[in-house]
């Protein structure tokens, strides 16, 4: 991206992205609500401040790469990409429809600009490791591989296989961000399959671990900047987010992990997002 945007502008964008997520999911009639809403600030920070890329030159050899490992959160990526100029926002309403480039879970071969295909959990980090190994072989270590992971997906063994490998080879070009929202489909992560002491686990695997408020855009930007200065280890940013962030009746409720709002709920959600306690003013058509 070009010049830095002021924080207030980034927060407005994040809110617009949340509104689009609600509209897309209501229109699609299926999909995940809580995760994408919770990740809107992380994605805004990545696409509007942190990453270098060019939506008009998708194969630019110096671009940074974003891998979404928890593919079910892809509505937030689609909405953010549309706002960032990858495609027209109108296309967002084709989510999950026959013939759409916006598949229910992300498919790289369908939508230019996506860097991976995911949905089955736990495989994003190891793909990032492969990419970082290639960067090292090619002496291209000015590029960064960002991986957004869910917390529930870290029940998968594949994640920890990758964690060991990244540490062994000191793949510092990998910056992982865990969406630590403490919910998964069957309930709170700590009752489904406890992940704590989460930070200590990643540290024990040899990672540099940062813990932040994942709904604070500035904190996300700062943590990634910090991660890029760590050259002896890969970096894990534990981003504590509120699932369903911005919509009161969805926040913290694991029942919203895997379902969309109906029309009435969408109207209510959009109204809330537009006012947000009067803190910001959103721009609308």
């Amino acid at each position, binding site marked *: 991206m070009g010049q830095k945007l002021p924080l207030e502008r980034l927060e407005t964008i994040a809110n617009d992205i949340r509104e689009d997520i609600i509209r897309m999911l209501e229109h699609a009639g299926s999909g995940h609500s809580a995760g994408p809403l919770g990740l809107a600030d992380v994605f805004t920070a990545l696409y509007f401040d942190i990453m270098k890329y060019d939506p008009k030159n998708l194969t630019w050899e110096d671009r940074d790469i974003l891998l979404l490992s928890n593919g079910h959160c892809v509505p937030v990526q689609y909405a953010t990409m549309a706002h960032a100029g990858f495609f027209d926002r109108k296309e967002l309403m084709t989510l999950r429809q026959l013939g759409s480039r916006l598949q229910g879970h992300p*498919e*790289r*071969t369908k939508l230019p600009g996506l*860097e*991976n*295909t*995911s*949905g*089955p959990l*736990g*495989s994003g980090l*190891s*793909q*990032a*490791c*492969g*990419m*970082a*190994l*290639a*960067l090292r*072989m*090619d002496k291209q270590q000015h590029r960064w591989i960002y991986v957004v992971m869910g917390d529930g997906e870290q029940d998968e*063994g*594949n994640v920890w*296989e*990758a964690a*060991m*490998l990244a540490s062994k*080879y000191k793949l510092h070009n990998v910056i992982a961000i865990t969406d630590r929202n403490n919910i998964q489909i069957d309930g709170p992560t700590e009752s489904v399959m406890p992940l704590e002491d989460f930070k200590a686990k990643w540290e024990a695997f040899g990672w540099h671990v940062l813990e932040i408020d994942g709904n604070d855009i500035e904190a996300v930007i700062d943590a990634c900047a910090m991660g890029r200065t760590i050259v002896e280890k890969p970096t894990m940013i534990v981003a504590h987010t509120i699932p369903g962030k911005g919509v009161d009746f969805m926040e913290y409720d694991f029942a919203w992990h895997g379902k969309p709002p109906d029309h009435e709920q969408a109207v209510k959600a959009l109204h809330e997002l537009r006012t947000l306690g009067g803190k910001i003013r959103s721009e609308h058509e």
Partner: protein
Amino acid sequence: MSNMYLVDLNGKLEAEPIRKGFGRGLLEAGKQDENVVACCADLTDSTQMSLFAKEFPERFTEIGVAEQNLVTVGSGLAAMGKVPFVSSYAAFSPGRNWEQIRTTICLNDRPVKVVGSHAGVSVGPDGATHQMLEDIALMRVLPNMVVIAPCDSVEAEKATLAMAQDKRPNYLRLAREATPIITTAKAPFEIGKAYVFEKGADITLIATGTMTYQALLAADKLFKDGIEAEVIHVPTIKPLDAETILKSVRKTGAVVTAEEGQIIGGLGGAIAELLAENHPAPLKRIGMQDRFGESGAPDQLLEHFGLDAKHIRLAAHAVLGNAII
């Protein structure tokens, strides 16, 4: 029994594990293309990746005993323009990591080269856990995937070089034990082609991997029985060379398939599907008959499970009997 493809099978045959050819092919592919890289899951010497690893240590990655990571790291390497060969025993890769191969390699369309060594019951004493018999079926069912099972080390070397040039995901099936070298250095190899190793008009024997040599031995015995068998070697099980196979079956009207793996979903399954839709013909399938292997000496096991020339010959007679009826 001599032609452009084969050495003189009546002479003394040299034998070598098929995986040795892969090792040489990978080393050569690495010399030809600096983007060729390799990963292994703690079996570098067994899978013969050691030749490459020694020559190009900076292009080799030791993954450890982690087959899910093996293929997904491969997907990431391919995403950056590398041509990754990722190897382990077939029982573990693609045995354990099928979903990762499906999602991050096939659906994601990345040209990762999955190499499964020690396939088949001829692994021997290690027993059923290590005798991978379902890999052909597992890989054949995946869209985008190419499935290759060379018949000897000479062909394996050529197949490896061809895979390094191929832009699709590939699976290469290798065996542990020494296998007679039957093909010549000049024999052609092209992905997707089947080769008529022996011409005949009475029955078509279709074989892949280690069983191609057994099919040739069976053809020799059948000739003495007064039956001229056509032997087709199918190193590429997917995409299947339907033209070569159907041309032969239209002539002979009877078929026996042979493979060192499960007939369900394997070469036998593939041929049954092809024939049923295009040219129904009497068929017997030699291979593992929906059961697991067990420990034993390789030769003992092959005979015990009916995976040899003797059983191919008997199947041919059975098919021809049915054809007459």
